[in-house]
């Protein structure tokens, strides 16, 4: 078996960029949640400021993948590796935006004490944080089993999200002063839940890569 050095090298570079992107998104999610829990506006602003790094990585992946398609004309699985790489980059970029949206809630709540200690939202974020890692890992290892088990975590995220909504709706009906903040915290739940959906998309991309079949993982 001969190697295709140029192609394999380029693909490796895309993988490295995706890993970097995933780490940045995890960082953004972590810090956005942390800023929310500790009402740390400075930390929230840092999440904003660094979002462009994620966008830049997506563009680099776009450019590199386009070059590879152009010059190497990959087919079959080689082609899917790049197409799925594009898709993962797009999903990660959206996740970065959603982390920024969470940080934005911290800014909007500046100066207000939290109406309740945050328990389920951080728990959701913790699940999602792990999903992001597993999603990228499943791509790197072309591991469908991992992709599928990762997507299953989405159920737990959804269950927690429902609980968050129930609790906050109850709070709103009892304490009308808290409506504004409770709404914003509901949004945070929504943002985290959306990030999990994007991770699930990545899992579907991995199934497509390996089996050349479309799938609905969740």
């Amino acid at each position, binding site marked *: *078996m*001969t*190697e*295709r050095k140029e*192609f394999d090298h380029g693909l490796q570079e895309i993988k490295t960029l995706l890993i970097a992107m995933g780490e940045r998104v995890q960082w953004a999610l972590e810090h956005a949640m942390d800023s929310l829990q500790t009402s740390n506006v400075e930390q929230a602003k840092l999440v904003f400021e660094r979002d462009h790094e994620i966008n830049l990585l997506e563009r680099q992946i776009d450019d590199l993948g386009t070059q590879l398609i152009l010059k190497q*004309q*990959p*087919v*079959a*699985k*080689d*082609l*899917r590796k790049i197409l799925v790489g594009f898709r993962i980059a797009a999903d990660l970029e959206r996740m970065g935006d959603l982390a920024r949206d969470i940080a934005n809630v911290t800014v909007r709540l500046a100066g207000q004490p939290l109406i309740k200690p945050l328990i389920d939202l951080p728990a959701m974020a913790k699940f999602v944080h792990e999903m992001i890692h597993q999603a990228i890992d499943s791509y790197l290892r072309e591991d469908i089993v991992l992709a599928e088990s990762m997507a299953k975590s989405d159920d737990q995220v959804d269950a927690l999200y429902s609980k968050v909504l129930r609790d906050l709706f109850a709070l709103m009906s009892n304490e009308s002063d808290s409506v504004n903040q409770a709404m914003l915290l509901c949004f945070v739940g929504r943002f985290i839940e959306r990030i999990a959906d994007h991770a699930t998309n990545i899992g579907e991309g991995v199934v497509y890569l390996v089996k*050349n079949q479309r799938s609905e993982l969740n």
Partner: protein
Amino acid sequence: MEKAIRIDGLNVYYETFHALKNIQIEALPARAITALIGPSGCGKSTFLRTINRMNDLVPGSRVDGKIIINGVDIYDQQVDVEALRKKIGMVFQQPNPFPKSIYDNIAFGPRLHGVTKKSELDEIVESSLRQAALWDEVKDKLKKMAYDISGGQQQRLCIARAIAVNPEILLMDEATSALDPISTIKIEELAQELKSKYTIIMVTHNMHQAARASDHTGFFLNGELVEFATTEQLFSNPGDERTESYITGRFG
């Protein structure tokens, strides 16, 4: 429904060399383009040449098995090989027009088959050149020597010459490998036009040409037909690992 070509247990030997090994194709579709790919020496051209029995001309060659076209095994002893070859046109790697005028190149086959009326020949020449997408470029110089037009035009002339005798099947053996990219694309587009009337089978070294231009693809390796599938299937999700290695450029 057009009858597909069926290949049944086809073996070809050159002396002791086993060039094609038990080739089996249930249905090589009619009125479609089939591409044959594989590394040099894999047997794809040999296979192409079994279809118009050109291998008969190679000393020491031996064929067994069946190729069934329109319900008839073309290797049956009753088959009139000349009549068979009339139904099967062939285009080669290098354009090979006759040292005659453009007009006479096209008229050559029909004349050979007994067409003598000038008006009828005119009509065949025009319609063949039109089908080969060459008419507009040469209609004012039909009396010119065929060698005076470009290589790409000469190749389309050869296609026009092949279809002038109204064949059913058109074999193309690396028909674009000596042409520039623009001429190549023209021939590929021409093949797309022609497939509604002819069954086209093309051997190509250019994998991307197979992907671009064909409906079905067969992958040959060491005299075996490793895989025969729709082009979409073969290039997106090949069934055999050897096919995947070849099309992704990892051997061959």
